[in-house]
């Protein structure tokens, strides 16, 4: 005790003394303090009671609910894209298939709350997409965190590698394998095939069960019509992710993706290519022959026996690959923007089904058949073919294209020579039949498939126009225009003025001529099959058997006269396309057409007429059953014999595998 610090000595000693009144009394727990401690105790008990009760309520009463919530938190269901079915030609060669690609997607819900736009900006920079567009898309999809946004498909390897290396800087960004449409033949059959794109809002609303946001769907052509077969069924996989969306385990497949079925077309790649080349050749030939505005065309080849489309070409065309991956708005301008489309003469449309043209002289067999059926014309009746003729009260003069012919002739020769005045006479006979008679030709034309869609299985179709007195009355305002004058019947008899047809309707009519009077329904898709594994025969899932051709009820004898006329047109010395077809080893019969159409061309007054070059025909003709019908139109191509006919010949050459020995281009109707 003696070594204790001095300051403490006094206090130590007090312990042994009685309480010093100067010093405060020894401390005792006062009742007041005890009460206050008690209050604190009660507070403490209440606090713990509350905590226990809450813990019990969360864990025991609603534990299952929260467990489910926690489990849902970490599992992300990922759709496994199904490879889209290939599109095959009639021999099973792929026209459209897939290549593997890498897609970069963004899960909007996983983007950081702060700095979301920094991530978007960086991502846009890496992928070279416009940041503003991506940001806008993210804003639009902010309410839909369950479906990722596809930022870009067909991402390059370098970019993928960069994203993988810097994964931490890109929360919510997912790199996924995807399938990209691949077009080994580039522009081949572009308008028939259509293209694939991201599902639109409209599609989503229409088929909410089938489509999910971000799906790829066929947008046009075969891709669209047969989408349900091509698309397959996406699979599902689940993956554990942490709160930043980073995968924490392997992808566990829940449902395998079912690849889409292959769709087999009736089109033959070789013939299709020949048809497309033929069109370009026809245009070039037309330009060489002073039809400088030739700039487009359509060519269709049908099997006249069942309506299978062997080739369907439309020019100008485009590469469907512009729709693959991230779409460059500039590249698709001609396909979506009307002004841009006009500049390039509408490359997106399929002129075979949606191009409407006056048929010109290719229409004459329609008139001849109708006249024979109506007994207005006997096949071997001599009708004058004069340089010109006058009809009506005003003595309006109508001229023949060839002013040097001036003799009476039978129907086959009139067809072969394509004599206009002969058919003016026939047309006028219809006119003389009064109100009823004036519609008889159109009624037959309707039976031959004009004025209505041909019913092809793919793509949109135009109906064309069959002018009738009723139509005139309906359509025009002034009494003058409402009237059906002799000129209407006369012009209609040579496929001019108001009548308008599509190349497909025309091909269908010539198929009817070739097959003995039966109207076929053209079709492009022959069957749906499971995508063939290597070295195995494909299994046909569904075959589209064409409807059996329907007889239109024409007299076979009348039909034979027409066929004779068409054969003469390609083989007799006076035939309009003999120069093109007479030396071709296979007998081909067909008719030229040179149709005047109002075409607005800069520098010409309104109402400027350009000749539309036509040729329709079939082969082998006469002795055998025809196996192919070809119908070609070269827009602004001039005479039928100098543009459309040589183009059609190319297709026959390819189809029969033989070449014409010589070819003489003579300007005929």
């Amino acid at each position, binding site marked *: 005790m003696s070594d204790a610090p001095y300051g403490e000595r006094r206090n130590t000693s007090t312990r042994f003394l009685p309480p010093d009144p100067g010093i405060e009394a020894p401390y005792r727990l006062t009742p007041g*303090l005890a009460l206050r401690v008690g209050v*604190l105790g009660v507070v403490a008990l209440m606090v713990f009671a509350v905590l226990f009760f809450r813990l019990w309520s969360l*864990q025991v009463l609603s534990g299952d609910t*929260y*467990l489910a919530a926690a489990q849902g938190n*970490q599992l992300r269901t990922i759709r496994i894209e199904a490879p889209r079915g290939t599109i095959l030609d009639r021999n099973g060669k792929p026209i459209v298939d897939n290549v593997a690609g890498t897609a970069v997607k963004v899960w909007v819900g996983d983007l950081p709350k702060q700095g979301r736009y920094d991530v978007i900006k960086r991502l846009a920079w890496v992928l070279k997409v416009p940041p503003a567009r991506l940001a806008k898309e993210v804003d639009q999809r902010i309410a839909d965190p369950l479906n990722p946004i596809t930022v870009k498909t067909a991402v390059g390897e370098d970019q993928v590698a960069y994203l993988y290396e810097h994964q931490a800087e890109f929360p919510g960004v997912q790199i996924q394998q995807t399938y990209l449409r691949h077009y080994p033949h580039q522009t081949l059959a572009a308008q028939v095939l259509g293209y694939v794109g991201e599902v639109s809002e409209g599609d989503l609303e229409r088929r909410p069960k089938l489509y999910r946001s971000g799906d790829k769907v066929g947008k046009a052509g075969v891709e669209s019509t047969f989408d349900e077969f091509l698309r397959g069924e996406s699979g599902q996989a689940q993956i*554990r992710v942490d*709160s930043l969306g980073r995968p924490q385990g392997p992808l566990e497949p829940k449902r395998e993706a079912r690849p889409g079925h292959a769709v087999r077309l009736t089109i033959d790649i070789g013939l299709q290519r020949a048809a497309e080349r033929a069109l370009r050749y026809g245009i070039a030939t037309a330009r060489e022959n002073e039809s400088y505005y030739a700039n487009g065309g359509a060519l269709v080849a049908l099997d006249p026996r069942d309506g299978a489309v062997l080739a369907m070409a439309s020019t100008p065309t485009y590469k469907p690959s512009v729709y693959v991956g991230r779409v460059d708005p500039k590249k698709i301008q001609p396909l979506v923007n009307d002004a841009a489309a006009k500049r390039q003469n509408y490359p997106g449309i399929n002129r075979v089904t949606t191009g409407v043209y006056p048929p010109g002289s290719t229409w004459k067999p329609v008139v001849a058949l109708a006249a024979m059926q109506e007994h207005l014309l006997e096949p071997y009746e001599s009708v004058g073919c004069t340089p010109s003729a006058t009809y009506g009260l005003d003595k309006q003069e109508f001229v023949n294209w060839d002013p040097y012919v001036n003799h009476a002739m039978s129907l086959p020769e009139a067809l072969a020579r394509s004599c206009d005045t002969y058919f003016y006479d026939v047309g006028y006979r219809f006119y003389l039949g009064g109100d009823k008679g004036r519609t008889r030709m159109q009624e037959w034309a309707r039976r031959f498939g004009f004025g209505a869609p041909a019913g092809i299985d793919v793509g949109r179709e135009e109906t064309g126009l069959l002018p009738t007195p009723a139509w005139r009355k309906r359509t025009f305002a002034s009494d003058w225009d409402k009237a059906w004058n002799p000129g209407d019947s006369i012009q209609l008899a040579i496929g001019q003025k108001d009548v308008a047809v599509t190349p497909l309707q025309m091909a269908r009519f010539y198929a009817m001529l070739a097959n003995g009077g039966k109207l076929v329904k053209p079709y492009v898709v022959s069957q749906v099959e499971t995508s063939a594994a290597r070295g195995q025969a494909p299994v046909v899932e569904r075959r589209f058997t064409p409807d059996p051709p329907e007889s239109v009820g024409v007299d076979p004898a009348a039909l034979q006269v027409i066929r004779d006329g068409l054969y003469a047109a390609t083989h007799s010395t006076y035939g309009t396309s003999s120069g093109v077809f007479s030396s071709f080893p296979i007998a081909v019969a067909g008719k030229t057409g040179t149709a005047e159409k109002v075409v607005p061309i800069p520098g010409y007054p309104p109402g400027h007429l350009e000749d539309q070059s036509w040729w329709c025909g079939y082969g082998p003709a006469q002795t055998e059953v025809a196996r192919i019908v070809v119908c070609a139109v070269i827009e602004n191509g001039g005479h039928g014999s100098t543009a459309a006919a040589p183009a059609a010949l190319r297709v026959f050459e390819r189809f029969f595998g033989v070449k014409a020995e010589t070819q003489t281009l003579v300007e005929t109707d």
Partner: protein
Amino acid sequence: MIVDAGRQRIPLRSRDAIDVAALVRRLDLVLLLAVAALVGYGLWAVAGITRFDIPGDSGYFVTRQAIAAAIGGTGLVVAILTPPSLYRRHWRVVYGGTIGLMIFVFVFAEAVRGSKRWIELGPFQFQPSEFGKALFVLAIAGFLVEKQHRIGRLRTVATAIGLAIVPMVLVFLQPDLGTALVYAAALSAVLFLSGVRWLHLGLLLGVAALLVGSVLWFLPASGIEVLKPYQTARLTGFTNPDSDPSGLTYNVNQSITAVGAGGLEGRGVTDASQTRFDYLPEHATDFVFASFAEQRGFFGASILLLLYLLVVWRGLRVVTVAGDLYGAVVAGGIVFAFLFQVFVNVGMTMGIAPVTGIPLPFVTVGGSSMVANLVAVGVLQAIHARGREADVLRR
């Protein structure tokens, strides 16, 4: 009192020189065991919660936490050996030290996530405001006990509050709203136990309510922002957890989900996905209880709460056995601050208390908190031991 040879070797000043053996005998063994159990339980909890936090080093946090517990244990012993009267007599020094520490933080601390709380100390980070809790109680209690004869005066109360406001504001400005609130809780307990009149207590309660009201609602309404918007949102957000499920209340919703998903028996360490896959933010610190509840379930979490209850009960008992008023007030302040932390932290994880960054004593990963809490327990034990000694003397 007989002085023996062994006692002479104790290098303490004679007034406080005590027989170590006697001291140990006078400790509250139940409290000591409860705290030891809590520390052990907490280490086990941390081991599970942080197993996947550092890839390749599952024991990283628990090792550091164990080192902190060892340091804290030493601190606890030192605190037991230090006579509480020392703090009472030198409360001004303690107070000055507390303020100095806070200012030191302001000057030297590195800003981490926008707040200056930590001071680098070699390989460790040192968070003075954790130690400040106990020091604050010791200082304010010292003042109030010194002015005990004038405790009935409003002026005394006002002075005490004035003294308390300074460190509270300094902590608040770090900014560390949660710790400032702990200080406030400790202050109220200290005022309450030091004998402030009920009338004055009622008055204080009214002023506090008015203050909270103005800070949260009235002042912002008139354009004066005392709290940062996120602080206001956290304080009021728990009353309406669905207001912004992916934003500010995201944490709370994920935390409630974690607690609930634990169920009766817990999901175990590997299957506790909320914790493992980081859905639960700050699962080793602020939301540690939710993680623990997810992994160990109602049984595990209940044991933890019961241990806390045991500590609080023994702590309140220390208040009653304290040898002097100072001891009682200090013990009360420490216990109430402890209770407040447990309630706010656990309640926050279950959505019944505002979200503030308050650590869960003995469990939250953090060395300063662990050491400071153990030292505080040491102070309680010291008070208990002295109280027992006084009892013996009185008899």
